């Protein structure tokens, strides 16, 4: 019996407040060592040339651990190589702090809400 809640990811196309196309990946379930396919796999399936603004939505993820955060860093690494920008929203205050502690905020922007994230994309 697994005690891990399966991670799922839904991809959604949208536009920023200023009309820039963007891609939202909405996660649900645990974000942990078990989530490689759902987190990294989903991101990697997006063509890198047309998806320049990527928003990661964690509002439906109740549980996140350091192995899950490592997957976010792997997305950031690939994104940085292909000129994509990563935005994160839907984190609790606690995980906003954790993301900052590990330095993620140096390479990705963490927003309070989806609206804030979409407003921030130029």
């Amino acid at each position, binding site marked *: 019996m697994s*005690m891990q809640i399966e991670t799922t990811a839904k991809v959604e196309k949208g536009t920023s407040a200023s009309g820039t196309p963007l891609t939202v990946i909405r996660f649900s379930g645990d974000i942990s060592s*078990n989530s490689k396919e759902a987190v990294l796999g989903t991101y990697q399936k997006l063509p890198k040339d047309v998806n320049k603004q990527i928003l990661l939505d964690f509002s439906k993820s109740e549980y996140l651990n350091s192995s899950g955060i490592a997957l976010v860093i792997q997305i950031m690494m690939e994104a940085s190589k292909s000129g994509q920008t990563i935005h994160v929203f839907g984190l609790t205050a606690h995980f906003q702090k954790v993301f900052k502690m590990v330095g993620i905020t140096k390479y990705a922007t963490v927003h309070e809400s989806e609206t804030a994230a979409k407003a921030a994309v130029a």
Partner: protein
Amino acid sequence: MTVITPPSTATSVEVRLPSRLGFEKVAMGTAASVAKLMGFAEDRVEDLKTAVAEACINAIEHGNHLNEKLSVGVVLSMDANTLEVKVIDNGDGMSAQVAPPDIDRKMHGEEDPRGMGMFLIQALVDEAEWVPATIEGKSYCRLVIRLDKELI
């Protein structure tokens, strides 16, 4: 099965978990209940939950190598102002210094994207210590959070 003897001076709760990933969430639930009852503020409870989860994951993965025959022990000892959590495994343990993750090195592929658990534990609680196994005792990670800290 292992017997963990809690210190007799403090009140303690003991949990034993199978060495399977995901069970760290049960330890989080227990630790959160204890901390809330002791009066810790919500944000400190969150800090503790993440620290306990990371310590359990390490015990499950690195200490007990995912061997489900071995259990991870979690001993929560409390007095009026302090909650100490020991996360005990059957491995050799470690006492290494914890280097904080370097996001620049990670981004440039010079450092494993993982390796943030011990750093987070240290950063989130008031005291953190890793005690390697000895002839007398098992390897454990010990964390402490204090009630008065939140009054600042």
